[in-house]
C-alpha cells in the first residue's frame, strides 16, 4: 500500500479508534493502578475470629474499665466498658491509644539487658533472666555481707497502696534498707490533709456527681484529673440541656485551661495563691454567718482560733491583694458557694500526678468543713481504707534488723518532716552532695523519676553518684536509659494487676486487670521478679516472700475484702452508683464463697460497695479531739517536738513555716520564698498538664501526636504560652525561639501568644522533652521539670513545682 497523506491519516484515525475499542490500554492502566496499590510493604492485617476481653486500664490511677477487641489472639482496638461503674463507656485518649504501648518494640524492653555503652546512650546487650537475677542478687548480697544494706534504695512510682508497692517496700525491709522512696503524687498531700485534720486514713472521695457547686482550685477536671473517664462523663452530664443552670462549675487557676474555659466561671489567681482565695472566702462565710452551724459548732475544734486568724488577716480586700482578683468577686463567690445546696471544693493541681501544698489543701478542705460538706451527699465522703488482707510480718535477720534502724537519706519522718513518707528531692540532694556514694544500688519501679521529678534535674545528676542502677520498667523510659541492668516488666495489657480505689471515686472500689494478650516477649511480671529474686537470695529474705507467684499475693489481699466488707462483683450499667448509693446503707454480696468472688473478680475485674452511711459526724473523725480539727492537734504535737530540739525563734523558720506560732497549726496562706533576686528572674514559670499528652511515667501513644496542635509542638520544639501584652513588653512574637532560664538551668521553647495566659507568667506543658522511648516521643519539646528550682513546701517537705521564677532570653 502506498504511503500517502490519505492512507496515513486513515491509519492514524483507525489506530486511535482501534485503541479505544481494544481492552488492552484499559487493562494495562487498571493493572498498573492495582499494582501500585499493592506494594508488598503495605501491611495487610490478617483476618480471624473477633472476640472481646474485658479488663481494667492501669495506665493511670483512674481505673477505667476497658474492653479489648481482638482478632484471634491479636488485640486490635481498646474501647470503654459500659458495665463498669467508673467510666460509663468512655475512656481517655491515652487509654484509647494503649495498643501502641503494647505493639511497639522500640519503646519496650523485650528481654533482660545490661548496659554496654555509656550511661544515657541506651546501648544494652541481651542477657538471660538467670544471669540478670544473678547479677542483682550478688550485688545485694554483697552489700548485706558488708553490713551496709542501707546503701540499697528503691524509688517506686506505682500507685499508692497497691500490692506491688507493698511488695517493693517489703523487699527493702527484708534486705535491711530504710530507703524506700515513692515519687511524689497528689495522694501524698490528700493523705496528709485527711490525717492532720480528720485523723482518717481513707482516700479523698469526692461526691461530685451529686454536687451542685463545684469549686476547683486548679484541678484539671477535664484535663485528666482524678479518673478521666468518670470526670469527663460527669462534665457531659452537667452540660445536658435539662441540666443547664442546675450545676455550677468554677475554676480557679492562672491559665485558661480547657477546664477554666469550659467552666461556668473562671477566676484567675496569681500562681500559688489559691489558699489565700479560699481564706478570703472563709472570711466572708464566717462574717456573714453562712457556715453550717450544726457542723462547725458541734463537730469541729479550733474554730475560734482559726476564725479569729481569718477575720484578722484574710478579708476579701487582703485576699484580693495576694491573689490578684477583685474583692467583690471573692465576696460573691463565697456567698454563692455557701448558699448552694451541696457545694464541694476540690484541690490537687492539674492531673494530680504531682503533690500539692499542705497548707493550701488544708484551707480548701476547711471550706468543705465550713459548709458541712464532709460526709454529706455531694460533698467529700469520709471512708476507711479498703480492708485488703494484711501480709505476714517480714522476717528479719541481724543485718536487716540493724539496717532498717539507720536514718533515711531523705529525712522523712524526722522531727523536721514529721508526717512525710518520702521526700525525693532531699534524697537526690543527699546522694548528689555526699562525698562517699550514699547509695550503691538503686532499684527503680513503675516510674520515670528522671523525667517526672520536678527538681531541676537533680535526680538525674544524683544518678552519677549511684554506681548501680536497676530498672524494672517495661519501657525504654528516660530513667531506664541511665540504668545498668534492666529486668523488664510486662506491659499493662499482658499482666494481672490492680487499681485500688481509683482516684477521687466516692465509694470503695477494687479493680483487677487481666492479661488481654499473652506476654509477647521474654519479660516477667515485676511481682514475680521480686519473688524470684527473694527466693534466690535465700535466708530471711526468701522467708519473707513465701508465695509461689504474684497472683497468690493478690488473692491473699483480696481475701481481706471478702472477710471484712460486703460488696458486689457485677455492675449492670443501668443505674449509676452515685445515684443508688444515696439510698443504700448496705448491700448484699452477689457472691457466696471466696472462690466465687475471686473468680468473678478475675473475669469481671471489679469489686465495689455502692453504699454509704452519710453524716455520722460524731464518729467519723479519729483525731485527738474526735472532731474535725481546724487547729490540728497532730501538727501541734509535731511543732512542739521540733521546738524541744531547737530554739523557738528559729524552730518555725527551720520547719519552713513563715507564719507565727499561732498560725502554724491552722490553715493559712504561706508565701513561697525564693532564694534569689526577683529582678533577675521577673517572670513566673507555671508547668501545666493536658489530657492528650501523658505526663507521667507512660509515654504518649503515637496516635496522640495527631491531637497535639502545631502551636503546642512544632518539629522538635514545644511552645510556652505567654500573654500577648507580656510578650510585647519583652519584644517577643508568635513562634520566636527562646530560652527560659531559671537558677536551675534553661530550656529552649517557642513562644505561643495566648490571651488566656495570665500576664507575667510563662506556661510550659509537662510531658514533652523525653530522652527515652522512640522516634515518636524522644527529643520532642522541652521538659520544664529540668529547670524547676525546687522550693520546699512548708511541713510536707515536698517540692513547690507550680511556681518558678524565670527569665526569657531570645535565641
Amino acid at each position, binding site marked *: 500500500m502506498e504511503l500517502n497523506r490519505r492512507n496515513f491519516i486513515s491509519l492514524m484515525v483507525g489506530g486511535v479508534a482501534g485503541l479505544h475499542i481494544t481492552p488492552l490500554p484499559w487493562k494495562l492502566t487498571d493493572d498498573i*493502578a*492495582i499494582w*501500585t*496499590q499493592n*506494594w508488598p510493604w*503495605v*501491611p495487610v*492485617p*490478617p*483476618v480471624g475470629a473477633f472476640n472481646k476481653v474485658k479488663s481494667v486500664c492501669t495506665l493511670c490511677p483512674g481505673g477505667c474499665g476497658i474492653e479489648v*477487641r481482638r*482478632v484471634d489472639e*491479636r488485640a*486490635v*482496638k*481498646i*474501647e*470503654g466498658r459500659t458495665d463498669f461503674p467508673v*467510666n460509663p*463507656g*468512655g*475512656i*481517655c*485518649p491515652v487509654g*484509647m*491509644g494503649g495498643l*501502641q504501648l*503494647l505493639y*511497639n*518494640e*522500640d519503646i519496650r524492653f523485650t528481654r533482660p539487658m545490661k548496659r554496654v555503652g555509656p550511661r544515657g546512650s541506651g546501648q544494652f546487650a541481651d542477657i538471660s533472666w538467670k544471669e540478670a537475677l544473678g547479677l542483682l542478687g550478688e550485688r545485694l548480697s554483697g552489700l548485706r555481707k558488708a553490713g551496709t544494706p542501707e546503701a540499697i534504695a528503691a524509688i517506686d512510682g506505682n500507685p499508692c497502696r497497691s500490692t506491688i508497692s507493698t511488695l517493693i517496700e517489703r523487699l527493702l525491709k527484708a534486705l535491711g534498707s530504710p530507703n524506700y522512696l515513692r515519687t511524689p503524687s497528689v495522694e501524698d498531700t490528700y493523705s496528709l490533709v485527711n490525717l492532720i485534720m480528720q485523723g482518717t486514713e481513707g482516700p479523698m472521695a469526692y461526691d461530685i456527681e451529686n454536687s451542685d457547686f463545684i469549686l476547683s482550685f486548679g484541678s484539671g477536671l*477535664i484535663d485528666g484529673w482524678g479518673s*478521666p473517664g468518670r470526670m*469527663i*462523663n460527669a*462534665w*457531659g452530664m452537667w*452540660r445536658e*440541656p435539662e441540666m*443547664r443552670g442546675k450545676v455550677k462549675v468554677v475554676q480557679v487557676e492562672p491559665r*485558661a485551661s*480547657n477546664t477554666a*474555659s*469550659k467552666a461556668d466561671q*473562671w477566676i484567675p489567681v496569681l500562681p500559688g495563691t489559691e489558699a489565700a482565695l479560699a481564706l478570703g472566702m472563709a472570711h466572708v462565710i464566717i462574717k456573714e454567718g453562712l457556715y453550717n452551724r450544726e457542723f462547725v459548732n458541734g463537730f469541729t475544734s479550733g474554730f475560734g482560733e482559726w476564725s479569729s486568724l481569718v477575720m484578722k488577716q484574710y478579708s476579701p480586700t487582703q485576699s484580693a491583694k495576694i491573689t490578684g482578683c477583685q474583692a467583690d468577686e471573692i465576696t460573691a463567690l463565697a456567698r454563692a458557694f455557701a448558699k448552694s445546696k451541696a457545694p464541694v471544693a476540690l484541690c490537687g493541681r492539674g492531673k494530680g500526678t504531682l503533690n500539692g501544698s499542705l497548707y493550701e489543701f488544708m484551707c480548701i478542705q476547711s471550706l468543705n468543713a465550713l459548709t458541712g460538706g464532709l460526709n454529706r451527699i455531694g460533698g467529700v465522703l469520709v471512708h476507711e481504707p479498703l480492708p485488703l488482707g494484711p501480709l505476714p510480718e517480714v522476717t528479719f535477720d541481724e543485718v536487716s534488723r540493724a539496717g532498717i534502724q539507720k536514718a533515711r537519706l531523705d529525712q522523712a519522718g524526722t522531727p523536721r518532716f514529721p508526717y512525710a513518707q518520702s521526700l525525693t528531692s532531699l534524697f537526690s540532694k543527699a546522694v548528689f552532695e555526699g562525698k562517699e556514694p550514699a547509695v550503691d544500688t538503686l532499684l527503680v519501679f513503675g516510674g520515670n523519676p528522671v523525667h517526672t521529678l520536678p527538681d531541676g534535674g537533680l535526680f538525674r545528676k544524683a544518678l552519677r553518684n549511684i554506681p548501680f542502677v536497676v530498672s524494672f520498667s517495661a519501657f525504654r523510659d528516660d530513667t531506664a536509659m541511665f540504668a545498668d541492668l534492666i529486668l523488664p516488666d510486662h506491659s499493662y495489657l499482658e499482666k494481672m494487676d490492680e487499681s485500688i480505689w481509683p482516684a477521687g471515686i466516692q465509694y470503695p472500689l477494687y479493680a483487677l486487670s487481666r492479661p488481654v494478650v499473652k506476654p509477647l516477649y521474654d519479660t516477667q511480671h515485676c511481682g514475680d521478679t521480686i519473688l524470684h529474686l527473694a527466693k534466690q537470695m535465700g535466708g530471711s529474705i526468701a522467708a519473707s516472700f513465701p508465695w509461689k507467684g504474684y497472683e497468690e499475693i493478690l488473692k491473699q489481699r483480696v481475701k481481706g475484702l471478702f472477710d471484712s466488707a460486703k460488696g458486689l462483683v457485677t455492675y449492670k450499667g443501668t443505674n449509676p452508683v452515685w445515684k443508688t448509693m444515696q439510698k443504700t446503707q448496705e448491700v448484699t454480696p452477689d457472691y457466696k464463697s471466696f472462690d466465687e468472688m475471686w473468680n468473678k473478680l478475675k473475669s469481671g475485674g471489679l469489686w465495689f460497695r455502692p453504699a454509704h452511711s452519710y453524716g455520722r459526724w460524731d464518729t467519723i473523725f479519729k483525731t485527738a479531739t474526735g472532731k474535725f480539727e481546724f487547729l490540728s492537734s497532730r501538727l501541734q504535737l509535731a511543732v512542739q517536738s521540733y521546738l524541744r530540739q531547737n530554739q523557738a525563734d528559729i524552730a518555725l523558720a527551720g520547719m519552713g513555716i513563715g507564719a507565727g506560732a499561732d498560725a502554724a497549726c491552722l490553715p493559712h496562706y504561706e508565701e513561697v520564698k525564693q532564694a534569689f533576686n526577683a529582678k533577675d528572674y521577673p517572670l513566673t514559670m507555671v508547668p501545666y498538664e493536658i*489530657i*492528650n499528652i501523658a505526663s507521667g511515667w507512660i509515654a504518649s501513644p503515637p*496516635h*496522640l*501526636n*495527631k*491531637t497535639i496542635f502545631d502551636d503546642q*509542638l*512544632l*518539629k522538635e520544639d514545644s511552645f510556652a504560652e505567654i500573654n500577648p501584652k507580656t510578650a510585647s513588653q519583652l519584644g517577643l512574637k508568635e513562634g520566636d525561639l527562646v530560652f527560659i532560664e531559671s537558677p536551675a538551668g534553661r530550656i529552649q521553647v517557642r513562644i505561643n501568644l*495566648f*490571651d*488566656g495566659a495570665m500576664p507575667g507568667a510563662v506556661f510550659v506543658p509537662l510531658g514533652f522533652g523525653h530522652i527515652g522511648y*522512640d522516634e*515518636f516521643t524522644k527529643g520532642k519539646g522541652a521538659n520544664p521539670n529540668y529547670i524547676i528550682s525546687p522550693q520546699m513546701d512548708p511541713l510536707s517537705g515536698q517540692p513547690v513545682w507550680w511556681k518558678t521564677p524565670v527569665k526569657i532570653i531570645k535565641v
Partner: protein
Amino acid sequence: MEKKHGPAKGNSYGMVIDLDKCTGCGTCMVACSAENNLAVRPDESDKQRSITWMRLYKVTNGKEFPHAEVSYFPRPCMHCDHHTPCVSVCPATATETDYHTGIVSQIYTRCIGCRYCMAACPYHARTFNWWDGYFPKGKGLERYLSPEVSPRMRGVVEKCTFCHHRLMRAKTQAYAEERKELEEGEYITACTEACPAQAITFGDLNNPEHKVTRLAKSPYAFRLLERLGTEPKVYYISTKDWVRKLGDNYLPGEFKPISTVKAG
C-alpha cells in the same frame, strides 16, 4: 433508573456534636485513628501532611485576659447531602454518596490521587497519602491493625467513612438475627462510642424517633458553612454565641445571637 445523587432516601446517617459537652480531650481523634488503621508518622506536627479523619480544631473567643476562652470543634467528614463537592469533581468515581445511607464513600483502589476532591471540600476533611503508611520493619506496629479497614497506600486520598465497616458489622448481625432494620445505637461510629463526655450522638436523620434527629432541631444547632448549601449531615450544638458565629462567615451585623433568633 434509580436516581444517583441527592438527599438520601433510605437511612440518612448523621451526627450531632454538642460543643458544650466537648472537652477537647482528643479521644475521638485517637479512637478514629485506632479504629481506621491510620498510620502515624514520626513528625505529626506538620499539619499539612498529618493524616486525620476526625480532626480537632481549637478556637478562641478573641477576648483579652481574663475573658479569653477556648473551645473545640471536632470535625469528621460532613457527608454532605446536596451537590456533595468532592463527589461532583472526582474524575475517577472514587467517591460516591450512597443513596441508601447518605454516607460519602472513598474507594482507595479507584482513587488516582489527583486531589481534586481535596480542593473541592470546603471542610478540609480529606487528606492525601504522600507516603505509604509508616510501619517500619522490626518495630511491630502493624500488629494492632484491624482487618476491617484496609490500610492505605501512597498516592490516594482518604477521609472519614462514618466507620462504614461498623455499619456492615451491624447489618451482618441483624441479618443473622433475621432483622431488616437496625435499632438505634446498633450502628455508631468509633468516635461516638469513645467520647467520654457523650458529646457525640449518631443516628438516622431520616428517623424522627432517633435522638440525633431531635437534637439537630435544637435552636442551638448549626452546621459548618451552612450557607454553601452542601447540606452537611454533621450538626453542632453550642449555647455560646461566639462559638456558633465561628461556624460560618458573617458580614458585620449579619449574625443573629440566639436571643434574637428566639424572638424572631
